[in-house]
């Protein structure tokens, strides 16, 4: 019996030793980062982590926030809701962070949202764009915010752009059925496009594990004429679909959401010659003349070794939004920071000027970018 006690005691000692290692001195401002570092969504979480690292380094080099250095604590959601819940619990109760950035996707953000509310720590997702991330449709979650615009907004933007700018009247829609992102966008696009007087001739869905879309593309070609193709998905698959559609002889303009934004889109499509007549809405454009955007692109490329995407831009903004909120609150008390974050006014980020509406969604403009030979050729700003 004594031995068991000894064993238990040792185990507890080891555990407490581990927690002791992670806690640091009181002179820093701790920000929790809960993003996808492994699993399917690591592609989105990794660039966000890099952008956060960059922003934190910049802030610290410039003297920190309220004279204190910023310390970011990174946890991996493993692209798993349960893990996300557990991470945010730990960040809020063990690490006692001032605020949390995360997660990169809507699913894991929604899993953690009730925890952030329960422990009253503000949580800001850079890219969780599902409408229900910050509210349940009737009440707003008091501690959950986002830096990106929401899916319904960009769905409408793209549909209007297709009808007016491209003059399309018949659309075909294809999208992933595995993500809320794609499904919502497809529905909203179709609704708005029909409201604009157009018709949707075909709607096709596939799952996230697919890489070969020839079957549905062949089906689309046989479904009737259309003059615009809307692909509701991220670049990983959208790039492949663009390539396969062009190879299969579908030459109509292709429109899509912010998920198209990726340095890999051209390579995914299999060559710049396939990436013509492509339009997508996004958060920031590399064509921007804004000095802050140019500086960010240069700094990010230097530190991360790759060109920034919309995801990294949003994560970068998220850090500065928190900085602003902490300074406005003049306090590191999560509740006070939350109040300041909610009241954030005309925050100038690289993804636009941000104000929160009553649902904690940013009111900001979208940009529709045209790709010619895989390069951004023009950018149209669409205001809300």
């Amino acid at each position: 019996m004594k031995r068991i006690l000894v064993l238990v005691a040792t185990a507890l000692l080891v555990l407490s030793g581990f927690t002791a290692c992670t806690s640091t001195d009181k002179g820093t401002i701790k920000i929790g980062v809960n993003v996808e570092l492994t699993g399917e969504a690591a592609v989105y979480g990794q660039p966000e982590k890099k952008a956060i690292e960059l922003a934190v380094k910049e802030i610290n080099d410039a003297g920190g926030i309220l004279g204190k250095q910023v310390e970011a604590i990174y946890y991996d959601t493993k692209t798993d809701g349960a893990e996300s819940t557990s991470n945010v619990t730990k960040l809020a109760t063990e690490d006692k962070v001032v605020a949390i950035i995360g997660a990169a996707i809507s699913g894991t953000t929604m899993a953690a949202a009730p925890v952030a509310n329960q422990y009253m720590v503000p949580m800001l997702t850079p890219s969780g764009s599902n409408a229900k991330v910050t509210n349940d449709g009737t009440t707003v979650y008091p501690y959950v915010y986002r830096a990106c615009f929401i899916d319904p907004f960009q769905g409408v933007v793209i549909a209007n752009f297709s009808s007016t700018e491209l003059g399309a009247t018949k659309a075909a829609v294809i999208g992933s059925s595995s993500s809320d992102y794609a499904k919502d966008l497809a529905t909203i696009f179709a609704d708005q496009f029909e409201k604009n007087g157009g018709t949707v001739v075909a709607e096709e869905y596939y799952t996230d594990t697919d890489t070969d879309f020839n079957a549905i593309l062949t089906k689309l070609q046989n479904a009737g004429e259309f003059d615009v193709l809307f692909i509701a998905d991220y670049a990983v698959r959208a790039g492949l679909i663009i390539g396969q559609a062009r190879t299969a002889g579908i030459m109509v303009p292709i429109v899509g959401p912010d998920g198209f934004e990726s340095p890999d889109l051209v390579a995914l499509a299999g060559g710049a010659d396939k990436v013509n007549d492509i339009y997508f809405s996004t958060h920031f454009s590399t064509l921007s003349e804004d000095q802050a955007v140019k500086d960010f692109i240069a700094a990010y490329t230097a530190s991360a070794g790759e060109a920034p995407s919309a995801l990294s831009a949003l994560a970068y903004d998220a850090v500065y939004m928190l900085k602003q909120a902490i300074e406005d609150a003049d306090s590191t008390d999560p509740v006070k920071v939350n109040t300041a974050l909610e009241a954030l006014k005309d925050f100038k980020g690289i993804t636009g000027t941000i104000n929160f509406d009553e649902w904690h969604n940013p009111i900001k403009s979208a940009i529709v970018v045209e790709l010619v030979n895989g390069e951004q050729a023009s950018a149209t700003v669409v205001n809300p």
Partner: protein
Amino acid sequence: MLEFLQQMINGLSIGSIYALIALGYTMVYGIIKLINFAHGDMYMIGAYVGMISVTTFKLPFVLALPATMIVTGVLGVVIERIAYRPLRKSTRVAALITAIGVSFFLQNAVSRIMGAKIYTFPPVLENRTFMFYGLRFNTQQIAIFVTAILLMILLQVIVKKTKVGRAMRSVAVDQDAAKLMGVNVDRTISLTFAIGSSLAAAAGILVGIYYNTINPLMGFAPGLKAFVAAVFGGIGIIPGAMIGGFAIGLIETMVSGYGSTLYKDAVVYIILILVLIIKPSGLLGKNRKEKV
């Protein structure tokens, strides 16, 4: 009718990818009865090694393919030595868990080393599309299809006609008896892993070129499908893997083309279960009577 034939072509081209992966799967299974969950990840490793040899070492495709196959084959042997050999006398499920461990390890190690970002494959094989009586083919589809068939024939020849193949077959039937007959069991198993892994690597590099995108998790889903294909055709039987692969490719395409993509996996599994119920050892499998 034209649409149907076009869908057949689409289906066969996906099917040949499953078949390519399934060949290595079924081979390893046939010899040591291990569901090598890491096989799909060897395919992923093959794609990465292929990409590095083409981009960093600037090898032309004809050299990159054998180089990738050799590197991945050696890796397969090393994994077998370290992770699977100590477990050869243990239960099969313990070996299965080890294989799952290896699979997780490969996925996460590659993700750690290469970053979780998507890599794209340079277009090393020219992709031309041509029409034939209104049907659309492209050269990459044909390359994959032909490679799959050639590798299957090669594998069949190795297994059936060579001394090494005879050793493999004898190990598959009874390891102890094979040992008594002077077969070097360890070396035969190593060789099986080498061949199986290099086949996966060949599939990886071809698929990398075809879809021109690779990521650390790319092996899991096709690996699972290839396993299903191997079981479908009769696991351990080389032509069975081929037939299974094509069958699954065709079913998936037809369900997507004439029904809904969302149900294609469900239909594949339902057909699989039905096949197994009617013919419990797969399409080409021999039903062995159970003996006490």
